[in-house]
């Protein structure tokens, strides 16, 4: 499923809403999550999962083609941990 299909499903289940409002609703949810992570915050959605940001320290990497050493700056990466309910539903 892609985002537009998700929007269509929610719109079909809520015929009293304008399609553009459903688009805004879905975009708002994902923008809020990304915004929180960009501020270094956690996002906890019980039953679904939790998003957090992990710090990766700077390291010396290598260009795999040339073997040349390259400095890789420290960076932050988003991380998702599946919630208990969803993890159980995936395996039942």
């Amino acid at each position, binding site marked *: 499923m892609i*985002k537009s299909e998700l929007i269509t499903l929610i719109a079909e289940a809520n015929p009293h809403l304008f399609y553009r409002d459903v688009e805004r609703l879905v975009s708002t949810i994902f923008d809020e999550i990304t915004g929180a992570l960009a501020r270094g915050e956690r996002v906890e*959605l019980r039953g679904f999962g939790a998003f957090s940001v992990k710090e990766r320290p700077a390291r010396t990497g290598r260009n795999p083609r040339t073997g040349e050493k390259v400095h890789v700056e420290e960076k932050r990466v*988003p991380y998702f941990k599946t919630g208990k309910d969803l993890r159980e539903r995936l395996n039942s």
Partner: protein
Amino acid sequence: MSNKTLTRADLTEAVYEAVGLSRNESSELVESVLGTIADRLVDGENVKISSFGSFLVRHKNGRTGRNPKTGEEVPIDPRRVLVFRPSQVMKDRINN
């Protein structure tokens, strides 16, 4: 790094402000978006949200694990796990 945690209540509030529906309905719609995504994943379908990221269902084979404390062997059944791959847009926003 902030200790603040965003929850469903914050998503509901953001939807309430952005869309102008009641708080109650906003809350139900947030639930319905998360629920729809979860249902698709449980059906074994991957979910791709452009400029956000992808939720991918991976199949793990069974293997023999070991209790690291006792050294005892424990069978681990085949299972499905969820991985989230952030989009480039999200990675960039988090690093700037």
